[in-house]
């Protein structure tokens, strides 16, 4: 309906309901998922979702277009989720801290190759809980990067802008997140290889 993002924003500023709806349709999924993974609570994630769009629509006149609309919205959501985490004073680092090398990379401890297990064995009834549990156990700083890059498919540059990080920092955190998740999933899937 709107050929460019600039047209979409202009229409929203002019008060066109369809433009607001389009913005919600395009971005609510990523806003919700980022919030859910950070606060780990569907009710609070929904509150962050609502707060994000209410604040964004109120502030739309102040959006300068230096970033994409999406990254601007995700940044609002990220900050809203962080505020909640701080209020809750949730411990941000995992108690089960992984072993790291001098430059901070986690040393792998699991070497069983479960990657060739057929999907019907991997995707058992506990699978989603395992995936979510491993993600929830990551420190917030790694989880936010992983969710935006690998789950929501943002580019390194978009993720960096959303989270206020350098691109190098995004890459380093993404790598640590992946290694930590691989380790956790290996703990679950590797015994299936032995029992094959």
């Amino acid at each position, binding site marked *: 309906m709107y050929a460019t993002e600039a047209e979409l924003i202009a229409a929203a500023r002019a008060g066109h*309901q369809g433009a*607001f*709806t389009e913005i*919600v*349709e395009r971005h*609510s*999924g990523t806003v*919700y*998922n980022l919030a*859910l993974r950070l606060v780990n609570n*569907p009710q609070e994630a*929904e509150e962050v*979702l*609502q707060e994000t*769009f*209410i604040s964004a*629509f109120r502030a739309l006149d102040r959006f300068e277009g230096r970033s994409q609309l999406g990254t601007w919205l995700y940044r609002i959501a990220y900050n809203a989720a962080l505020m909640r985490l701080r209020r809750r004073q949730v411990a941000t680092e995992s108690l089960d801290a992984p072993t790291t*090398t001098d*430059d901070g*990379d986690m*040393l*792998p401890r*699991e*070497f*069983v*190759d*479960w*990657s*060739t297990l057929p999907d019907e064995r*991997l*995707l058992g009834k506990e*699978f*989603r809980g395992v*995936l979510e549990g491993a*993600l929830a156990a990551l420190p917030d700083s790694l989880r936010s990067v*992983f*969710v935006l890059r*690998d*789950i*929501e*498919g943002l580019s390194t540059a978009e993720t960096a802008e959303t989270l206020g990080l350098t691109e190098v920092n995004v*890459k380093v955190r*993404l*790598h640590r997140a*992946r*290694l930590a*998740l*691989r380790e956790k*999933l*290996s703990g679950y*899937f590797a015994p299936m290889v032995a029992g094959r």
Partner: protein
Amino acid sequence: MHCKDMLGSLSAYVDGELEAQFCAEIERHMADCGNCRAVVDTLRKTVYLYREHGHADVPEEARDRLYAVLHLDKP
């Protein structure tokens, strides 16, 4: 090349962001190192599983409430 030397580059490797020469060194190492091969294959699979199954959609009732607080008609 030793296992630890390539560990920090594995994400760039599975994302196809490394120069050809460095990729070749990693592949030479993996040809003789089953552990690194397993780490790379399971790392790739981990990313794939989250890409395919990690996204949680906004629940329908939450979508209804979002449109209601924004005073918008749900499409």
